[in-house]
C-alpha cells in the first residue's frame, strides 16, 4: 500500500504521475529543483520538496539528494518517471535500502537491460531474434562476420554510441578499407579498436510492444510505431503500429511477452524492435524498463492507465488484468511539441510562453505542464507537451490530428508544431507504415 508517493521527475510526466496517484488517494510529493519550484507539477502536487539547484547533476540526477528528500518527506515509494534516474540500478537499490518502494522493475531487470550488448545476449537467451552480426577484434574476423550476415553491413564501434563512427559497407570489395578506417576511428575516439558488424536494414521501422509483468504473469498491450525520428529522438508515435502483417504483429507481441516472462519482470516495460519494412523480419533491440513518453497512445487504445498499473504492481499486487481482457480499439497518434525551432535546425528555444492554446475536445488529450505564462527553463529537455488524438480508425485519427494541429497555437517560443503540420499532411504518413528515413524525404 502506497500512501505517500515521491515523484522524482519534472515536467509533463511529473504532472501525469501526480494525477493518477491523487485519483488513487495517494498524497503526492514532487521533488523539484530550484528552477521548477513554481512549475505546474509543483503547484499541482500536495507537497513540494526542494532537491537542489537547477542543473540536473545537482538535482534530478543526484541519487543522494533525491533519496534524502524522499526520506525527509516520509515517502513510502518513489516514482522515477522516465529519463533521469528511472533506469539507474544504484538509485533503485538506494530507494529500497532507505525502506521505500521503487516504482519500477527489480534491480536484476535494470542490470539485464543496462547496455545494448548485454540486452542483446539476454534477448538471445530468451529466444528472441536479434540483428545478425557480432563483435570483431581483427579485420579477418570482421570480414568473416560480414560473410555470415550478408551485405550491406553496418560497422560500429563496440565502445561507441550515438551513431559515432558508424559505417555502411555495401560490397565485399570495400570491406578492407572500411574496416581499417572504422577500427582506427574507434581507437581514436574510444581508445578501443574493436568493431561490431551487423546486417544493415535499409528500410527499418521502429516498432515496440508495451508489456506489463508482476514477477509471475506477463501480458502485452499491443504495438506502437515510433519510426518518425530525428537523430534517434522520437517525434511521432502511434498505436497500433500501422500496415503490419498479422504474422509480424503476433510475432512481435509474443516475443515481447517471452522476454518479460524470461526476466520475471515486474512493472511496465517496453520491448523495442527493428522491423525490416521490406521483409517483415523483426529483430529485438532493447527493453526500456520504465514508463515511456509515448505511453498515452497505448492508454488511448486499451483504456488501461499504465501509471496505475505501475503503482499497483510496485505495491505488491498481482496483475488484475488478463490478456483476454485487453481489447484494443481504434487508433491513437501522439506528437511531441518541443521548444525547438524546426526552421533553424531544431535550435532549442527556452523561454516564456506568452500564450498556450492547446486543442481540446472529444478524442483529444493534452499532457503538458506548460500553460499561458509558463516558463521552459534552458536547463532541461525541450518537451513542452504532447498532443494525443484517438479515433475509431487510422484515417479518422490522422484527420483529427490535422485539425487539432491547426487549432494549436503556442506564442512566445518557436515549437515543432509547424513540422508536425507538414508530417500530418504528407501522403506517406497519411498512407501509414513509414520507415525511419521518413524525415529525410519530408517536403
Amino acid at each position, binding site marked *: 500500500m502506497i500512501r505517500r508517493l515521491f515523484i522524482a521527475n519534472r515536467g509533463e510526466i511529473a504532472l501525469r504521475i501526480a494525477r493518477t496517484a491523487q485519483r488513487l488517494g495517494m498524497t503526492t510529493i514532487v521533488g523539484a529543483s530550484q528552477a521548477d519550484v*513554481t512549475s505546474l507539477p509543483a*503547484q499541482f502536487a500536495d507537497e513540494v520538496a526542494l532537491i537542489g539547484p537547477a542543473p540536473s547533476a545537482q538535482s534530478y540526477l543526484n541519487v543522494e539528494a533525491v533519496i534524502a528528500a524522499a526520506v525527509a518527506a516520509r515517502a513510502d515509494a518513489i516514482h522515477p518517471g522516465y529519463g533521469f534516474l528511472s533506469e539507474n540500478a544504484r538509485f533503485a537499490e538506494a530507494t529500497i535500502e532507505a525502506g521505500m518502494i521503487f516504482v519500477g522493475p527489480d534491480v536484476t531487470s535494470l542490470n539485464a537491460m543496462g547496455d545494448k550488448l548485454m540486452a542483446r545476449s539476454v534477448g538471445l537467451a530468451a529466444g528472441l531474434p536479434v540483428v545478425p552480426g557480432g563483435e570483431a577484434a581483427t579485420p579477418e574476423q570482421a570480414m568473416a562476420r560480414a560473410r555470415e550476415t550478408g551485405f550491406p553491413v553496418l560497422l560500429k564501434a563496440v565502445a561507441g554510441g550515438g551513431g559515432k563512427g558508424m559505417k555502411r559497407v555495401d560490397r565485399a570489395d570495400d570491406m578492407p578499407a572500411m574496416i581499417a578506417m572504422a577500427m582506427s576511428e574507434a581507437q581514436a575516439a574510444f581508445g578501443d579498436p574493436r568493431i561490431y558488424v551487423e546486417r544493415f536494414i535499409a528500410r527499418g521501422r521502429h516498432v515496440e510492444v508495451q508489456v506489463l509483468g508482476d514477477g509471475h504473469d506477463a501480458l502485452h498491450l499491443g504495438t506502437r510505431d515510433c519510426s518518425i525520428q530525428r537523430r534517434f529522438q522520437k517525434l511521432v508515435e502511434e498505436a497500433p503500429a500501422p500496415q503490419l502483417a498479422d504474422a509480424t504483429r503476433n510475432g512481435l507481441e509474443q516475443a515481447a511477452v517471452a522476454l518479460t516472462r524470461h526476466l520475471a519482470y515486474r512493472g511496465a516495460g517496453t520491448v523495442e524492435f527493428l522491423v525490416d519494412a521490406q521483409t517483415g523480419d523483426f529483430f529485438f533491440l532493447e527493453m526500456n524498463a520504465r514508463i515511456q513518453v509515448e505511453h498515452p497512445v497505448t492508454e488511448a487504445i486499451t483504456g488501461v492507465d499504465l501509471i496505475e498499473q505501475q503503482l499497483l504492481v510496485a505495491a505488491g499486487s498481482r496483475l488484475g488484468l488478463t490478456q483476454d481482457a485487453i481489447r484494443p480499439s481504434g487508433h491513437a497518434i501522439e506528437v511531441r511539441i518541443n521548444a525547438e525551432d524546426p526552421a533553424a535546425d531544431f535550435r*532549442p528555444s527556452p523561454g516564456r510562453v506568452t500564450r498556450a492554446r492547446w486543442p*481540446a*475536445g472529444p478524442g483529444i488529450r493534452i*499532457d503538458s505542464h506548460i500553460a*499561458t505564462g509558463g516558463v521552459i527553463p*534552458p536547463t532541461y529537455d525541450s518537451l513542452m507537451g504532447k498532443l494525443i488524438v484517438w479515433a475509431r480508425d487510422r484515417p479518422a485519427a490522422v484527420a*483529427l490530428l*490535422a485539425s487539432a494541429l491547426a487549432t494549436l497555437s503556442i506564442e512566445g517560443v518557436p515549437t515543432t508544431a509547424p513540422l508536425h503540420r507538414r508530417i500530418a499532411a504528407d501522403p506517406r504518413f497519411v498512407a501509414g507504415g513509414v520507415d525511419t528515413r521518413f524525415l529525410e524525404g519530408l517536403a
Partner: protein
Amino acid sequence: MNEPFLTPEDIADIVAILDGSDYRELDVATARFRLTLRREGGGEAGGRWSQEWQWAAANGPAAVAVAVVQDTPAGLVAVAAPLPGAFYRAPAPGAAPFVEIGARVDGDTVVGIVETMKLMNPVHAGHAGEVVAIVADNGAMVEGGATLMHIRPHA
C-alpha cells in the same frame, strides 16, 4: 493542493457539450486558475476547440542566477551568449579553459560553450583580437545575448 481538478476527460466532455450549442467561448476564472475554451474554426469536431489555462501561482520567474549584462567599455567588443543556458569555460569538468585573459583569438575561435537543453553550443569569439576580460563565471546561468567576455579587436 487537494481540491478536485478537471481531468482531460472532463475537458473533452465539456467541449462536446459546447460543440452542440451556439456558444463560441467559455471563460471560467477562479482564485487558482482561468480556463478559456474557444471555438477556433472548422475541421473535425474534436479538433476545432482550444483550451487555454492560466495559473495564478505558477510560473513566476525561475530562481536562477543570471550573469549581469555589463556595459562594454569603449574600444572593446562583447562576446555574447548565443542562447540562454549554462556557460562553461572548458570543454569538460577539470579540463583546461578554452581561453584565458590575454589569449589571441580569431573570429571563429571557440572561447566557451553554452549548454541549452542538454545541447552544447559553441561560443565563437566573433572578432579577431585579444581576450581582456571574462565577465561571466564558469557554470553561471546566462540569458541569450548576455556578455560573456570582452575582446580588444585588432586594428
